[in-house]
């Protein structure tokens, strides 16, 4: 008692015992603090709720599609053309072949141009005004509704030729593929480290050879994946084919005639009044979904985040 007490935050009580530490928060602060935590929990709950609200129905849709499609899918689907109206059986073999033909056409036009444009952006035009303009325009083009491409191809080709054709459908789809592939190719080429380009240039390899044998070669898995994604994306497109390829109930191999396509057939059957055709539509939808699943999975394996992520 004779010593001067050392001033501490919580002075001892008069009898020398310790007081609990002073609560520095005022009552008002404690209330608002409680409210803040409540808000925090509320928002967390809302976020989880919205995720559940979104994920569950979407999974349900997927599941329903798979279920309906699987029960409708049989071997005849892949081997037969549609049966006459009212008769059971039949398949969508001609539609799948038609899709294949159109897609091959579209890819042969769209892939080289797209990759070349991507090469320009990454290897020659990087940082230039022209490069930025091309990049921006490609991004904007990717958002144009596909039906517009269909009308454009119709106006250019079908109107002139006075008939529908697989070729016009291919052109419509090719126009859609080019901006997509351009951007994915550019992004993949940008992942190639600049040091190995320098290594090749330092050896006296001309630039064009460096681009082909070093840049493209190193980035090729990613570039191929990007092409695959573009392919999968246009494979499911219906609108551009509505008045270009037009559809065909029979086998068709000529590029100059109307041709069946899987998504087109699904649409026609879905809005038809016949149950048998509805069944075929579900089966066709399942085939499309499976193809999409495969390509999305492959993309995930090959290239993680980035441009390919949303390129679906």
């Amino acid at each position, binding site marked *: 008692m004779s010593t001067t007490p050392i001033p501490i935050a919580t002075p001892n009580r008069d009898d020398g015992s310790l007081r609990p530490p002073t609560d520095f928060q005022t009552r008002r602060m404690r209330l608002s603090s409680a409210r803040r935590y409540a808000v925090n929990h509320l928002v967390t709950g809302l976020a989880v709720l919205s995720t559940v609200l979104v994920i569950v129905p979407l999974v349900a849709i997927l599941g329903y599609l798979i279920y309906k499609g699987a029960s409708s899918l049989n071997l005849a689907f892949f081997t037969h053309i549609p049966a006459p109206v009212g008769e059971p059986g039949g398949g969508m073999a001609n539609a799948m072949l038609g899709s294949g033909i159109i897609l091959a056409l579209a890819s042969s036009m769209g892939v080289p141009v797209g990759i070349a444009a991507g090469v320009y952006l990454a290897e020659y035009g990087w*940082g230039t005004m022209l490069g930025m303009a091309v990049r921006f325009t490609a991004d904007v083009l990717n958002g144009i509704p596909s039906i517009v491409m269909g009308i454009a191809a119709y106006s250019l080709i079908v109107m002139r030729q006075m008939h529908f054709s697989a070729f016009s459908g291919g052109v419509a789809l090719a126009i859609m593929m080019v901006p997509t592939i351009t951007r994915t190719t550019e992004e993949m080429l940008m992942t190639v480290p600049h*040091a*190995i380009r320098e*290594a090749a240039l*330092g050896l006296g390899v001309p630039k064009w050879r460096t681009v082909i044998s070093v840049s493209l*070669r190193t980035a090729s898995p990613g570039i191929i994946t990007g092409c695959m994604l573009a392919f999968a994306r246009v494979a499911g497109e219906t609108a551009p084919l509505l008045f270009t390829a037009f559809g065909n109930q029979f086998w068709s191999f000529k590029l100059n005639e109307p041709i069946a396509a899987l998504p087109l057939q699904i649409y026609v059957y879905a809005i038809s009044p016949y149950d048998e055709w509805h069944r075929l539509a579900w089966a066709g939808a399942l085939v499309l979904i499976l193809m999409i699943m495969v390509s999305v999975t492959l993309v995930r394996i090959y290239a993680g985040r980035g441009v390919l992520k949303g390129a679906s």
Partner: protein
Amino acid sequence: MGVGIDVEHLNAWYGTNHTLQDINLNIPANHATALIGPSGCGKSTFVRCLNRMHETNPIARATGVVKMGEVDIYKDASPVDIRRRVGMVFQRPNPFPTMSIYDNVASGLKLNGFRHKAILDETVERSLKAAALWEEVKDDLKKTSGASLSGGQQQRMCIARALAVDPEVLLMDEPASALDPVSTSKIEDLIFQLKSQYTIVIVTHNMQQAARVAENTGFFLNGKMVEFNSTDKIFTTPSDKRTEDYITGRFG
């Protein structure tokens, strides 16, 4: 065998940045020349001017005369020609990741269209031996990926790759700075052996390395070449006070 390089009034810019200011020097053939100086003083830019690699940067430009032997490399030849005569080894090893060791070393030839298999085999072996890497990789040349080697091995492979095109000059931009001491000493031994056959220019941060391998040394500071002399003289009796300050560690 190597050729000498004469540099007269070389100026270089990156955009508006005047990186090299009026460099004049004479690099002798079949000798190793070291370039030392603090970071950012322009040594790397200088060697990149020697094989016109700075031109790969769109905002870079250079004026002046650089002669290899009798040839003005800016006026009398194209960059591709020059780079086939002047090999370059970079700071970080940069093997081609999609190619095997064999293809990496032979890339300077294969990518230029050379197809003669027997000569390719022999060149690859010779280059790998010259780079002191042969014994370590000779068993699986065509199957092992170039990127799967250790850092020191990769750098030696890059040296072999540069040697395979039979250059006359070898430029090395801090070749050992990213490597461990053991690999570093292997590469220094290499330089010691190679310099009788090639003209070597080596940029280094490490003054002891310069003292070990080079006969001549140039000291760069802020884009100017302050002093260029035999290594002995630079490190024992430098003529310029700034050189002395740098060497004794007062800055940089």
